[in-house]
């Protein structure tokens, strides 16, 4: 993995947010950026490159990447459904949403469809309790989920893949 000059400029901009010598602070935003550039997950090469960019030891990157739930350490499907299942979403029927996705795609939480298109994850509270049930889809939230909305999201995922 190697960034173009243009991307390196973006990395420098991130580092510029902090005082001299505190570039390690850019680790979380940079890992988001690297993950996006690396097809949605953090390979060990990607993490080593991140360490190199910030002039820190690789283990410092691994420690952080494995701590936070938004970093994927394994490749993921093209569309990842991250359905919230904590209390307030459970009260509004999140279990039914997970069941319905299983019914439609045959995947349980933690699994990816055979064609690699969809991954289903259950996650903990995403701060959208008033708009439950909900899921995270890429950088966006999809709220007030219904069976119809799931159907539409699956269709959208299939279209996107083609």
């Amino acid at each position, binding site marked *: 993995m190697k960034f173009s000059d243009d991307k390196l400029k973006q990395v420098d901009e991130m580092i510029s947010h902090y005082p001299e010598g505190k570039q390690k602070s850019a*680790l979380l*935003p940079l890992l988001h950026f690297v993950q996006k550039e690396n097809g949605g997950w953090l390979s060990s090469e990607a993490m080593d490159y991140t360490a190199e960019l910030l002039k820190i030891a690789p283990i*410092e990157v691994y420690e952080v990447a494995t701590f*936070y739930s938004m970093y994927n350490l394994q490749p993921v499907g093209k569309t990842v459904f991250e359905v919230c299942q904590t209390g307030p979403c459970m009260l*509004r029927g999140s279990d039914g949403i997970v069941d319905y996705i299983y019914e439609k795609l045959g995947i349980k939480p933690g699994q990816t469809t055979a064609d690699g298109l969809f991954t289903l994850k259950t996650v*903990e*509270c*995403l701060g959208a309790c008033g*708009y439950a049930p909900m899921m995270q889809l890429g950088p966006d939230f999809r709220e007030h989920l219904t069976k119809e909305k799931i159907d539409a999201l699956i269709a959208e995922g299939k279209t996107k893949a083609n």
Partner: protein
Amino acid sequence: MGRKLLLDKAHIEGIRHYDVYRREGGYRSVEKALKTMSPDAVTEEVKKSGLRGRGGAGFPTGMKWGFLAKPEGVPRYLVVNADESEPGTFKDRYLMEFIPHLLIEGMITASYALGSNTSYIYIRGEYWWVKEILEVAVQEARNAGWLGKNILGSGFDCDIFVQPGAGAYICGEETALIESLEGKRGNPRIKPPFPAVKGLWGCPTVVNNVETIAAVVPIVNDGGDEYAKLGIGKSTGTKLISACGNISKPGVYEIEMNISVEEFLYSDEYCGGIANGKKLKACIPGGSSVPILPANLLLKTAKGETRMMTYESLSDGGFATGSMMGSGGFIAMDEDQCVVKHTYTLARFYRHESCGQCSPCREGTGWMEKILLNIENGKGKMSDIDLLWDIQRKIEGNTICPLGDAAAWPVAAAIRHFRDEFEWHVTNPADALKRNYGLANYEKPLEIAVAAP
């Protein structure tokens, strides 16, 4: 209709952007502070206002600012905690999404008071689009001269950066947030030293919630005394409440802290009552960590007084018969909900979010989750209920940070008030898989005898 200080203009078209925000009177507090007030005078107004931290702990903000160490030649930092992750809480997201300049305005004024030349907003990574909204707003403020060098010719320099988290509830704890902002694992620090002395990069730091900082705007504009006139007693001003669960109108409401819980829950101005004509069974009034209350203790205190939406009234009766204002995440449960299952999802949440640093939390949260799942699935024993009680008791107060307490309290309160429902799961395992225990006696009027000390 109660007064609104934060969200009164949130629905004006285009308020998300600088021009409209400014036209509607935005950034007046910065002008007033930088041109006519000393930093200490701003802190003084915040003290007078009686503003309490809106993140959950309710600590007086002015006092927190007063603790900030000010050694010569050492930078100081203001960090805004936008890592909103407490189940039931989504108020800060709403504020930042609809009226981001209010937060930025509050930050500039607060940074001036605290002497912070670089301030950060630490926002949870899942709110990615909100982060982008904030970044646009910061750039607009920068372009309009509200950020940068020598703001309004006052000699005060200030810049703001938005820092994303990456999925960790624990980073809402202020020292874990600072660690995370330093590019590390979100492990809470062992205190002392407190952030006011040694925080971000070892410098004196104030960490405040989004809503707290936004409230600085009306406080400086109208004066701390005016702000303190709103509300009751030590619960001054307005509070954002995010209401969810089985209510007719989930959403974010700004309330003046002088209305009753009943009015908030049942009036059409707010939650609009329980959805689908059902009855209220239980409610967690301040975010998932605070004690759950059965319907009969929610609307009236054990003394028989009307329970109000204030810090004091919500905690009236202590943990025996009261709860807390917390972060203002109001979760209502109707008669068809299962307290055991709900408690299980919360236990799972806290196990998932424990950083794993200290033994009671790392080991205890998972243990509670496993026992609760057994009970929920009809595989529990009577002794499990006592065991759960003992585990939560041994976590509470013995951990590095408040996550241990936050994990222990919901379990304790659920057993305290709904023990018969837990026992029903044990004695009727087959039934427990098919149906819920229902409303039982949880809304019946309380015997006054409960009021004994």
